[in-house]
């Protein structure tokens, strides 16, 4: 097996080098019949220790880097592994089909669902079509159309969030980016079907929220959810782009931070080293949690689903009286 990682983060380097070394030694053992078991075992021990040290307490900024990792599995990659049936649908019926937003009919286990997700590209070429996962208003309106379909046919909605944000461009503004997002926020507040949101990578502000309101908000372990990018925050606060690490910490954007603040409902573990190191395992982890959440939410009546969601958001906020 020759695994090639196209992109390696600084803090991943020592681990990947060590893995290569172990693989090499194993190769030598096989080819030349030398017994290097002792050396291999000691290297493996070192590898495990290094992995533990690196990934047990990742800094918020390193999680941001993992969440944006070019090799991180994207929405459709995961959806294809998770859903037992899948049919993508297109278009907002007003203007265009937005490549940065995917939506369709799917089956999770035995359960038919409506699926919606932000879609980043895997390559520069694909990103020209996917617009780096930054949707225009037509993306949010396509999502809204599928939400209506879910309501009409009583299908649960599952959304995957992975976007730097809604696209900041002239045409997006002229076609009503703010209105498109706001309309979805309203719609998701009263829909009488279960909505499960999984933030799989970047949860970028209002653009993420536009498909991100649900009965259950889950985050992959290294995903982030933030009101502004650490870069933007550093520029505003310290007028200094190099303070991104501090900004990432101050914004409390990691899954663990947000669970502690009771702003999300659960964390889905990633394989050691991050989702990109074992995409199939990541998909299995997500699927297991989705099945559990769905069977829990399906027991609620349509009215109580809407009420539960409404109440959950009603209680969000932190302030004093007096």
């Amino acid at each position, binding site marked *: 097996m020759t695994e090639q990682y196209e992109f390696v983060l600084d803090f991943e380097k020592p681990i990947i080098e060590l893995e290569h070394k172990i693989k090499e030694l194993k190769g030598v053992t096989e080819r030349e019949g030398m017994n290097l078991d002792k050396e291999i075992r000691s290297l493996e021990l070192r590898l495990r220790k290094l992995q533990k040290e690196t990934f047990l307490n990742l800094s918020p900024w390193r999680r941001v880097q993992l969440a944006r990792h070019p090799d991180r599995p994207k929405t459709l990659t995961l959806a294809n592994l998770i859903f037992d049936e899948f049919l993508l649908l297109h278009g907002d019926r007003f203007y265009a089909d937005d490549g940065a937003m995917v939506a369709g009919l799917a089956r999770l286990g035995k359960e038919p669902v409506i699926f919606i997700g932000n879609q980043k590209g895997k390559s520069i070429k694909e990103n020209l079509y996917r617009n780096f996962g930054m949707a225009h208003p037509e993306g949010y309106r396509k999502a809204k159309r599928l939400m209506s379909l879910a309501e009409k046919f009583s299908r649960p909605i599952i959304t995957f969030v992975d976007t730097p944000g809604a696209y900041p*461009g002239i045409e997006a503004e002229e076609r009503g980016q703010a209105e498109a997002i706001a309309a979805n926020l309203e719609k998701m507040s009263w829909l009488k079907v279960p909505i499960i949101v999984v933030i799989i990578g970047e949860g970028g502000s209002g653009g993420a929220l536009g498909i991100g309101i649900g009965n259950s908000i889950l985050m992959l372990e290294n995903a982030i959810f933030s009101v502004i990018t650490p870069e933007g925050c550093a520029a505003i606060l310290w007028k200094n782009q190099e303070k991104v690490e501090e900004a990432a910490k101050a914004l409390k954007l990691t899954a663990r931070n947000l669970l502690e603040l009771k702003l999300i409902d659960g964390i889905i573990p990633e394989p050691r080293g991050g989702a990109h190191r074992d995409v199939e395992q990541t998909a299995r982890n997500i699927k297991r949690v989705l099945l559990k959440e769905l069977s829990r939410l399906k027991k609620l009546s349509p009215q109580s689903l809407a009420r539960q969601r409404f109440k959950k958001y009603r209680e969000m906020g932190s302030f004093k009286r007096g």
Partner: protein
Amino acid sequence: MKESEKRTEKKLGWFRETYKKIAESRKKIEVPDGLWTRCTNCSEIIYNKNLEENLRVCPKCGYHFHLRARKRIEITLDANSFVEHDFELSSDNPLDFPGYEEKISASKEITGLNEAAVTGEGKIGGRYIFLGITDFEFIGGSMGSVVGERITCLVEKALKEKVPLVLISGSGGGARMQEGVFSLMQMAKTSAAIAEFKRSGGLYVSLLTHPTMGGVMASFASRGDIILAEPGALLGFAGPRVIKQTIKQHIPQSFQRSESLLSHGMIDLVVNRKEMRPTLIKILNLLLPE
């Protein structure tokens, strides 16, 4: 763009920057005694008393200056009819965000408000309404937990008492960075309340003032049954600077202004400040029973 056009643009770009700097340095010249104000748009020197009498609109070019929340209430509602709600709510610092408390204290001092939103009830043309205002001078009018809670409470009371709702936004920042995802969730919370209010048959008029952007525009501000805007207000989702950085092109002055949103079908009317109160009264009278 052709190569020659690019070259011209490059030269023009230099000229634009320099011109802007000169224009800005001229604007900075302080007018003594606080008796006069120089119009941001046409540079006309206006006697402050005249400016106030003209509801802070330039008598020469019609430029709409910022109007503070208290003054806005005064020119919108019937005299002395306003009763404030939820004044006792105040921000804490849920993320322990560096410098947030200091920022709040400074904003309190500048504006005389205790948060970016003022909400309450009052009468307009003899009719009872619930009114909420966000003030740009308080941390950009951004929506933290207190703003979200005040707006939501107001919408809920309007629903309960079956009274029309008017929200006047001047929220340049949208969501409030210092409150992180708490702030983002105020978009969801206010939107849910607005949705419930409208579905129950309530009338919601949204008035957009300079500037209303980001999370406020992408939640309650752009979902009025009727949406009005003051002339020349900057309205949109992404700020012009962010857009300029992203697309690396010059952005026309008219972009994201009230008049442009009107022509793109995003708002109902652009209304001069002087006409705003009569327009609101007219809308309420035409849509609602006597």
